[in-house]
């Protein structure tokens, strides 16, 4: 910006000053200083404004000056200036070269004295750009003549006003010292030429450069430099635009191959013109790309450019993961994966995801790098990152067939190799005799070469390489996962005392980590299994001492449920052959069902747990199944319809599989001979085997039959009908879905139904509920829970307990009163009776006497 405004100012100086010029001086008589000539000769941008002057009007002004007051002159000049500005914005290319200046060079322009210094630097710079080969010796101004020669034809060809230029040169020279007089004028002019116009101008310039680049990148590759310099602009808007347009250009012109450094040998060899041209093109491209990346990385630290820089990097990573400097791009994108800025984080995640999904673009190499970088990142930050940074792993894809292919191929390969060796050895023994063999050899050699070339060109890797890549990716992935697990285990043990309120607050990465483990469970090595399972068991809160099960874990219920799910999944996908009973996890689930709260925990996780552990599980033994049936019935009764339907679906499934448990549907408790040692149902038992659920009756189902939700009530009655069937028979299925689906369906329905249920008239609702509603509708529960804030709650509780206390006090007093009253009464009675007795006695005595 500085240089720009500087140059503007100069222009204005020159424009405004003509009136004071001594008109007598002739062109020939004026002696030009070398510097001036050099400046005007070489730099078309400085000359350009003058070329456009019409001689007439200048002459007019020059002639008129004496009679006119300065204000009038100024006004006219300003008008003209404006016009010119709009004109020049249409032709940005012309004075673009003049802008090609380092910020360092631009600095001196701020003082009027420094103008010459600035011009020189500018000149040298622009010549560098235009000439490409020219030495910097021109700075000295010694070769001014040469530059004049060079300039004149240019000027003539453009608007044939070379003479005019000279005149103006002279004028400008004399103007300089008088500039100060017009400083106030300058200010006004500057304001007039508002920032908006400048901005428009630069925008147009950028657009033009970009279009030119896209039209013919090979010949216009140099304008990348110009664009880069524009993005250096002080104006943030312009700089941002520059960055974005550069991004667009790079996106288009980056080739589909990686540009490598030329070896010395290659440099030494003479090459044709075309090759030279391509080399130059590639070299420039790489240089600019590097500069651009450096700029992005440096800008990333500035808050204004943060988003833009990250967006550019993400887009580049997305389009050109194969290109040079991918590592740097990846590093900074991965670093921003856990940024606190939502937008940035989302962009980075998307970029990494697309990197994982479109492996064809970069042959999977970038995938390893990214996974490794994330692993390091996690390690460095001690697992305290945003969950999104691990979430991206979920879009990784692993080809399971690779292993098989490879083994098959290995079996085939040795044979081939032997044949090769034979082919190669035999000719050596009979080199001359067998022409056929040599020919064959030649053919085979040629074929081999072709194969190698083909492999190098095509993007598909051979299976071996792919397997290696996949292996490394997997190991980095699981390293990350295990690190997170270990970290959560150790910290959860140390943090048990600190009761953290926010669930998942201390282990932000655990949830996505568990998800990932569940997804890639089939790829885990069996040797890790034991440790992994024990880790998960610890995390799920299971401990051998059963008294300690609750409150011993800082993890939330959903996370613990997820641990159970993952453990079962891992085990199931790996050791399907050996049917192992994960009893501890079932016990854990049994206890977690009680701890579930609909608002705090994710119902979906619970439904998923029910599905994986109970619904999909092959065989449950009877006692455990009975315990789960009973507990699920309790769950169905106490929570919303979505949870209820999930529980009921599972319950039904369990009842179908364990026909012996069906006597829980009968109306007599005790369980008969089946209820083993525990004769009485203990609803709070932590061990399903000791709950004695077989001795209980599923009375919950008959209540659930009256549930307000039709699907729940029909399900309950369907289950109840099982009691009348043979053990082998199963009732007609009404809902053939797993618990998770059922849960999703109903919760969706609930969301949809919300407004309508609110629209119901209140009294109707009340009456209905009073009549037949068994459970409170979830809306009411939610409302009741959400609307209360802490203070209000405290106040209410206080008043409530005050009332309670008052009541109990009252009762106590009343009891005392009653007591005293009764004792008084008794005393009265006693006295009365005493009197009577006395009377009686006296009477008797009297009688006796009588």
């Amino acid at each position, binding site marked *: 910006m500085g240089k720009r405004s500087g140059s503007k100012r100069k222009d204005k100086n020159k424009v405004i000053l003509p009136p004071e010029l001594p008109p007598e001086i002739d062109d020939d008589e004026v002696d030009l200083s070398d510097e001036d000539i050099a400046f005007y000769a070489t730099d078309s941008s400085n000359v350009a404004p003058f070329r456009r002057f019409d001689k007439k009007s200048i002459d007019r002004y020059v002639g008129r000056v004496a009679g006119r007051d300065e204000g009038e002159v100024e006004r006219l000049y300003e008008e003209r200036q404006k016009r010119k500005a709009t004109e020049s914005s249409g032709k940005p290319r012309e004075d673009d070269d003049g802008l090609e200046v380092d910020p360092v060079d631009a600095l001196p322009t701020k003082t009027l004295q420094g103008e010459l210094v600035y011009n020189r630097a500018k000149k040298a710079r622009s010549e560098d750009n235009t000439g490409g080969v020219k030495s910097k010796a021109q700075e000295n101004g010694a070769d001014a003549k040469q530059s004049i020669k060079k300039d004149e034809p240019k000027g003539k060809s453009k608007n044939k006003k070379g003479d005019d230029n000279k005149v103006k040169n002279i004028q400008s020279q004399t103007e300089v010292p008088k500039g100060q007089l017009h400083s106030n004028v300058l200010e006004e002019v500057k304001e007039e030429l508002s920032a908006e116009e400048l901005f428009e101008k630069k925008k147009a310039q950028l657009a033009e450069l970009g279009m030119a680049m896209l039209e013919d990148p090979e010949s216009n590759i140099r304008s990348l430099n110009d664009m880069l310099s524009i993005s250096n602009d002080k104006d943030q808007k312009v700089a941002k635009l520059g960055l974005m347009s550069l991004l667009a250009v790079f996106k288009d012109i980056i080739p589909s191959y990686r540009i490598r450094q030329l070896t010395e040998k290659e440099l030494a060899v003479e090459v044709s013109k075309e090759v030279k041209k391509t080399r130059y093109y590639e070299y420039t491209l790489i240089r600019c790309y590097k500069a651009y990346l450096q700029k992005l990385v440096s800008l990333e630290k500035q808050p204004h450019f943060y988003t833009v820089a990250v967006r550019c990097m993400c887009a580049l990573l997305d389009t050109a993961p194969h290109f040079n400097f991918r590592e740097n791009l990846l590093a900074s994108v991965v670093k921003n994966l856990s940024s606190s800025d939502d937008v940035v984080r989302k962009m980075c995640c998307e970029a990494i995801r697309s990197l994982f999904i479109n492996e064809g673009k970069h042959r999977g190499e970038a995938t390893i790098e990214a996974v490794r970088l994330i692993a390091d990142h996690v390690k460095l930050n001690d697992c305290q990152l945003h969950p999104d940074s691990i979430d991206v792993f979920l879009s990784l894809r692993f080809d399971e067939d690779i292993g098989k292919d490879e083994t098959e191929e290995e079996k085939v390969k040795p044979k081939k190799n032997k044949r090769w060796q034979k082919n190669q050895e035999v000719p050596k023994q009979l080199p001359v005799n067998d022409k056929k063999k040599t020919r064959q050899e030649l053919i085979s050699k040629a074929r081999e070469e072709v194969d190698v070339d083909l492999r190098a060109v095509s993007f598909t890797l051979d299976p071996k390489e792919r397997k290696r890549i996949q292996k490394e990716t997997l190991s980095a992935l699981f390293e990350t996962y295990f690190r997170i697990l270990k970290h959560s285990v150790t910290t959860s043990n140390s943090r048990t005392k600190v009761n953290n309120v926010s669930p998942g607050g201390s282990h932000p990465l655990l949830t996505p980590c568990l998800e990932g483990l569940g997804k890639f469970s089939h790829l885990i090595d069996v040797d890790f299994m*034991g440790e992994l399972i024990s880790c998960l068991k610890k995390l799920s809160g299971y401990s051998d001492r059963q008294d300690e099960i609750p409150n011993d874990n800082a993890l939330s219920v959903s996370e613990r449920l997820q641990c159970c799910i993952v453990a079962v999944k891992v085990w199931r996908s790996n050791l399907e052959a*050996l049917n192992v009973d994960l009893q501890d996890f079932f016990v854990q689930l049994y206890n977690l069902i009680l701890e579930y709260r609909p608002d705090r925990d994710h119902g979906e996780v619970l439904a998923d747990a029910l599905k994986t552990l109970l619904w999909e599980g092959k065989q449950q*033994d009877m006692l455990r199944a009975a315990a789960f049936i009973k507990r699920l019935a309790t769950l169905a009764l106490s929570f919303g319809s979505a949870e209820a339907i999930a529980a009921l679906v599972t319950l039904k499934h369990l009842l179908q599989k364990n026909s012996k448990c069906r006597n829980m549907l009968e109306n007599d408790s005790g369980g008969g001979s089946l209820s083993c*040692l525990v004769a*009485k149902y203990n609803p709070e038992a932590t061990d399903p085997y000791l709950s004695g659920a077989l001795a209980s009756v599923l009375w919950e189902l008959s209540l659930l039959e009256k549930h307000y939700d039709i699907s729940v009530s029909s399900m309950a009655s369907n289950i109840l009908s099982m009691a009348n069937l043979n053990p082998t028979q199963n009732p007609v299925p009404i809902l053939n879905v797993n618990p998770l689906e059922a849960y999703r369906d109903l919760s969706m329905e609930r969301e949809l139904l919300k407004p309508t249920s609110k629209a119901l008239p209140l009294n109707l609702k009340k009456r209905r509920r009073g009549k037949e509603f068994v459970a409170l509708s979830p809306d009411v529960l939610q409302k009741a829970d959400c609307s209360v804030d802490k203070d209000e709650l405290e106040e209410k509780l206080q008043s409530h307990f005050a009332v309670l206390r008052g009541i109990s006090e009252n009762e106590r007093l009343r009891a005392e009163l009653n007591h005293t009253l009764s004792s008084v009464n008794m005393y009265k009675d006693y006295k009365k009776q005493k009197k009577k007795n006395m009377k009686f006695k006296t009477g008797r005595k009297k009688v006796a006497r009588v």
Partner: protein
Amino acid sequence: MRPLDEKETTQVFEKLFKFTGPNLKHLLERPAVEGPDAEPGRYCLRLNRNRVYYASEALVRRATAVSRPRLAGVGTPIGKFTHHGAFHLTVHALDLLAAHARRRVWLKPDTERSFLFGNSVPKSSLARITENTKVGDGVVVMSMADVPLGFGIAARSAQDCRKADTNAVVVLHQADAGEYLRKEEELM
């Protein structure tokens, strides 16, 4: 009939602990269901003629009325002390263990008979096993229909089972329900 002394108690508890783990507490603290009393109290262990009985306090109180030579038994026998002073669990304890055990092994239906004849459980007849079984743990052997068949000691952990040979012994036989027929006179 007398309560166990300290040494005997530790011996019995150690054996039981192998099977029940921390559930041992439940075994001893659960409310009794035997006996005519309204409040039968808890269960306790009593020794009579080298046999250990698991009986409710109500029963024990009544049994004191019977003279020692005439008392054949009280409550459920769970094991016996050998002449060397070692304690062995007998098949009578099966129900008790089955309810409280932490590790179980399920047998394939057609191999149940072999186990009931007193053989150990090879890997081939294993249908299911509790996950974290370790070598030396007591396991209860069940049929696929969840009927307890007997119990034994795990010779391999659940992890090792996967790699083991098909004929490798997984559970060492200790007692099975077939003993009720085979050793009828020994049992009483």
